């Protein structure tokens, strides 16, 4: 069994309304030092198999097809045995 972690983030330049709202709220709470907030997804998959290389390939495919919306998002994949 392997663990794959997929981080999905908005591409730079894509508006992140959620990040903006969080930033404003942090400012209101006194955390003025926060200059920018971006919110992405952190997806953890438990995947059957031993061949980490192959698992990584498959998870990248999953990310490309389903986990990320490649029109506005980019992703990174990291696999661990």
């Amino acid at each position, binding site marked *: 069994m392997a663990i794959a972690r997929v981080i999905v983030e908005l591409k730079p330049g894509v508006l992140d*309304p*959620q990040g903006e*709202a*969080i930033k404003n*709220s942090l400012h*209101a*709470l006194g955390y003025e030092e926060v200059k920018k907030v971006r*919110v992405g997804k952190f997806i953890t998959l438990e995947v059957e198999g031993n061949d980490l290389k192959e698992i990584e390939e498959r998870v990248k495919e999953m990310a490309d097809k389903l986990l990320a919306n490649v029109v506005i998002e980019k992703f990174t994949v990291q696999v661990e045995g």
Partner: protein
Amino acid sequence: MRFGVVVFPGSNCDADCFHVLKNVFGRETVYIWHKEDNFDVDCIVLPGGFSYGDYLRAGAIARFSPVMKKVVEFANTGGLVIGICNGFQILLEAGLLPGAMLRNKSINFRCHDVYLRVENASTPFTSKAHEGQVLKIPIAHGEGNYYCEPDTLKKLIANGQVVFRYCNSRGEVTEDANPNGSLYNIAGIINERGNVLGMMPHPERCSEKILGGEDGRVIWESIIAYLERGANRG
């Protein structure tokens, strides 16, 4: 008797609650702007909607609004607070009620009528109903899947803090009747002291005949009766 409906940026059932209290029940009602921290009312309504866009988590940002400090104080002195839908979520985030909301089991936003069974009819919000009464009230939410720790649930049940549970039209609490996956079919709970209620369904949407149902009235009527008895704060 004066009602205050809190307006957070992104609230969108504020005007609906205001309309029902003011025009349907003829009660004095005021809006309370989220930056206000000075108001004089007998019952606070935290309305539904998407305060702060529901960004991060529903209710997470709203709980830090200046008004919430006063709402907490008000609640701690026995004042009546009812949170509906997003208002319920805010009460959870603010710690006035225990537990948290998860995404609906179906993932989707759901808007339709549900049936609720009144589990506790001796609260200020349900005294005009009777235990076991079935109310037909609409829901409209994407994050109404109530969750809490097992110990908390035990306490809620033991104390009679579970006020409404999702049921079918015959009043049977079944899995099929649960629209969002809520623990124990919970649709509404009250705090230990009994003056802060949170519920996901929208009683303000079924308080007039023309809108197809009036089962929501019993909640407003209970509150009004309670306030008329002068039983609030003090």
